[in-house]
């Protein structure tokens, strides 16, 4: 954990502590943080593609766009996705807009993934946290311009993208800006059949301005604007006509040269998300329905870093207020008739305030102890509580919960070996949908879901361990974690309910299982075969069981990836094979069926050259070269994945 702390201190103090950057770079690589938004296979990737290269992230995919990240095989209710520590909540009841869909790879600097209770710095979580870190150029002594431009074309879905970003830095003033536009048509699967409704268009722009108010303080304002239009969701009965996000913040940072406190960074933020679903593109639909959603969040996050001798600490205060609204309006066949209306999120307010702390002590040069925790208060208010009363008569309109989280860890380094053990305990409050959702149609199991305001906190008990070995040529790192989750929230069939959405087969209510267990394991190996030839292999396995010993849904079967990377001069070539074994531990109760094994072979080559001061990289590659027809365990409605895709990209940076 110290590694993380060190990093974030470093990230914030770049312009003061220039010399420490080098020391910490290695640390970054070791930790789960990805410090460059590109994968081994591709230099120009979407945020989703980039996240999927992480061991403990998998995805629920409803199409080609806006994949829902699963951390430790747990969905976004259990993890916490933030942008620079800011809470942003999607406005779609069907989770068609995870937060990761509102950023773009060219306005991010890194993605910080923390597993389990270690991720409780920004609020209560069970699975962990994913923090999307925006680009934040440091002040420089001399005036400096830098920038990058990426363009590319992917043949399978005719995706054409242009991403540009530029930064200006000086002694007093810094500006970062980015613009991007992606446009893709329907993709084709491994049988060369077009997957209808898989097109999308996404525009994203961001701007950050920082001003140094004194030698040790600065202010910064940031804004991201994201707009997606005409996004198809082949696995759903409807598409997205428009989603928009405005994510803004203003922060003040104060550094201290002496004393225990090294930096205090306080940020206020506001974000507004609109999400309008559209089913007019689906003439087969029996009933026309409008499903707009809105999510507005105000918040404050204030962080202080403390350091003294072999002790360091990070303290964070988080507070936010979110209002989530989602409507359903159904139109009868005779349009002159009165429409039918209900709220799927009946104006649900969530307020959270919490104080968290992560401490670490270097006991010796070889070992380190971490201890962290947070205590939060979570408040919910449902304005139109009568909707919740339909299934839960007399449920309280407001509810306050206390959410404690604790974690402890020990790390030991002996020569070429490293070990760690950790444990955690934490509560989380039900999400808006779980607590107050109303007839939210889930096209995976084809049930309408009803929230339950009386759900108890979900309580996670967690243990984790890792062991690794590293020498000059070989490195092996194995990680395991185990979660025992009390009051595990999941949908169960309600016999009393009658479906509302015409595609659905029944009604499920969110209820709590007594407990469930989740086990995750990963092994990572790298081996330098030759000076310029590197091999990397990854193996992951997970198992999730409910209290009756049945399988939990969306648990990734045994998956593997093996890749070779060869570099010579300005030329690089890489190839990878990855796949999942058959999903034998599927859960029919939650709408899953057995998913067959698949394997995908990818290949790419790139060439780097300098043209005056401009560094240029061109890349050509192919994904799914064998054009395998497949869908993964987490593909909504078993929609097939993309078949063979040839991609080209060009990146210019100065």
């Amino acid at each position, binding site marked *: 954990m110290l590694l993380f702390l060190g990093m974030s201190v470093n990230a914030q103090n770049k312009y003061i502590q220039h010399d420490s950057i080098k020391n910490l770079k290695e640390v970054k690589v070791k930790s789960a943080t990805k410090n460059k938004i590109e994968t081994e296979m591709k230099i120009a990737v979407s945020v989703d593609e980039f996240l999927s290269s992480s061991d403990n992230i998998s995805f629920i995919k409803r199409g080609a766009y806006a994949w829902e990240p699963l951390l430790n095989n747990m969905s976004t209710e259990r993890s916490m996705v933030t942008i620079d520590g800011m809470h942003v909540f999607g406005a779609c009841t069907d989770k068609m807009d995870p937060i990761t869909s509102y950023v773009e790879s060219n306005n991010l600097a890194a993605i910080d993934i923390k597993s389990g209770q270690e991720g409780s710095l920004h609020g209560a979580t069970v699975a962990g946290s994913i923090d999307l870190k925006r680009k934040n150029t440091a002040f420089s002594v001399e005036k400096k311009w830098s920038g990058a431009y990426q363009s590319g074309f992917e043949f399978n879905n005719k995706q054409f993208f242009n991403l540009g970003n530029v930064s200006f830095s000086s002694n007093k003033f810094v500006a970062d*800006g980015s613009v991007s536009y992606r446009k893709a048509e329907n993709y084709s699967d491994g049988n060369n059949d077009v997957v209808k409704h898989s097109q999308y268009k996404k525009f994203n*722009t961001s701007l950050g301005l920082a001003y140094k108010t004194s030698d040790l303080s600065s202010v910064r304002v940031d804004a991201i604007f994201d707009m997606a239009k005409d996004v198809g969701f082949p696995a759903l009965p409807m598409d997205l006509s428009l989603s928009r996000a405005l994510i803004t913040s203003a922060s003040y940072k104060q550094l201290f040269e002496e004393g225990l406190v090294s930096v205090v960074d306080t940020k206020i933020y506001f974000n507004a998300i609109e999400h309008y679903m559209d089913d007019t593109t689906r003439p087969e639909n029996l009933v026309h329905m409008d499903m*707009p959603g809105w999510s507005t969040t105000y918040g404050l996050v204030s962080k202080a870093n403390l350091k003294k001798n072999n002790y360091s600490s990070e303290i964070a205060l988080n507070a936010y207020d979110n209002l989530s609204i989602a409507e359903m309006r159904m139109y*009868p066949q005779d349009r002159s008739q009165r429409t*039918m209306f209900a*709220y799927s999120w009946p104006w649900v307010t969530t307020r959270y305030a919490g104080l968290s702390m992560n401490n670490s002590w270097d006991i010796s040069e070889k070992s380190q102890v971490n201890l962290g925790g947070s205590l939060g208060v979570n408040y919910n208010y449902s304005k139109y509580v*009568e909707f919740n009363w339909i299934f839960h008569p007399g449920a309280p309109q407001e509810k306050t919960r206390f959410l404690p989280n604790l974690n402890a860890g020990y790390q030991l380094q002996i020569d070429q070996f490293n070990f760690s053990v950790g444990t955690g305990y934490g509560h989380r409050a039900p999400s808006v949908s779980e607590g107050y959702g109303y007839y939210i149609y889930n096209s995976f199991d084809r049930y309408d879901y009803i929230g339950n305001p009386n759900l108890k906190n979900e309580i996670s008990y967690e243990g984790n361990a890792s062991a690794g070995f590293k020498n000059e040529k070989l490195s092996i790192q194995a990680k395991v974690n185990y979660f025992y989750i009390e009051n595990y929230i999941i949908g169960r069939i309600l016999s009393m309910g009658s479906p*509302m959405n015409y595609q659905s087969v029944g009604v499920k209510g969110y209820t709590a299982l007594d407990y469930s267990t989740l086990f995750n394991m990963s092994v990572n190996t790298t081996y330098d075969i030759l000076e310029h030839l590197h091999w990397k292999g990854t193996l992951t396995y997970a198992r999730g069981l409910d209290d009756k010993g049945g399988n939990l849904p969306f648990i990734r079967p045994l998956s593997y990836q093996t890749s070779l990377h060869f570099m010579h001069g300005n030329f690089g070539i890489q190839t990878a094979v990855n796949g999942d074994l058959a999903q034998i531990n599927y859960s029919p109760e939650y709408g899953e069926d057995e998913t067959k094994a698949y394997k995908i072979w990818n290949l790419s080559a790139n060439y780097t050259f300098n043209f005056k001061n401009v560094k240029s990289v061109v890349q050509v590659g192919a994904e799914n070269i064998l054009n395998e027809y497949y869908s993964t365990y987490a593909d909504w409605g078993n929609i097939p994945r993309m078949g063979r895709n040839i991609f080209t990209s060009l990146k210019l940076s100065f």
Partner: protein
Amino acid sequence: MKSFQFFVIAILFVITSCTIDKTDYEAELESEVPEFYEFKEATSFTSGSYKISIEALNGIFYKGYNELHLKVVNTQTNQVVTPSNVTFLPILSNTDGSKTSCPHEYNLGYDAVNKYNVGYSVFTTESSTATTWKLYVNFTADNQIYKVEKDITVEKQSNKNLNMTSFTGKDNEQYVIALIAPQKPKVAENALVAGIYKYNKPTIPAGVFPDPTQFSYSKVSGYTLKLDPRMPEPSMGNHSSPNNKDLVQQNDGLYQGIVNYTMTGNWTLNFILQNQNGLIVKGTLVSTDFTPGVEGVKSELFIDTLF
């Protein structure tokens, strides 16, 4: 720097451009379904030195259930008087000459606090050229009996939540079921109040018209009105709701249950009327299957609502 300014302008432009407006849920309910609280004079007549004023909600007699307030004022002293033996009889005349009535309170009770007589009338048809309504009111004031009659107009009830139905039961009796509350339902559990009335077949020959014994109705006692609300639209596939309660009789003689509306729109209240012995008077069980694309089959006893 120019590009930054461009971004800012672009962002501002997009923020201020229009989006889909949020539904103003409360205002929408308000505009779609009228709700009346105020009793206003619906008709009045004078007899001798007395003016009789009959008040109804919104000052209009509607088809369906109407609560009625009857006030008697001495026009000479301008004082509200307390009449006794107030009777009330609505008579429907058809062009074919037939005369019938509708469920009503014949002997009006007195509300001492508000100083008026209270009754009700469940008008079973709207006034038209073929059907006309006339009220026959008798009362005693200062030991003198007054008999008055007056033509009235019964208008269409545009609020479907106050709909009514009349039918002949399997026991060969004539029944009327009229919805009384809620006037303006919500997406919620609504206390559903209905009056269930039966025509008392005359046992003696008719006397002088209007002979109240020939036009007698009463609230049925100890019956149960089983409820199964559903959305009839084909697109709603026979959608229903949980936690509904059958209507049973309350102390005031009216029947009360709970209807749970899961969303706004067209609903059908499917009923089965059972008598005090549990025998079905009217109504059939409806399918509980979810049948998208098919219009829901209604019970033979139902009332449509809309909000």
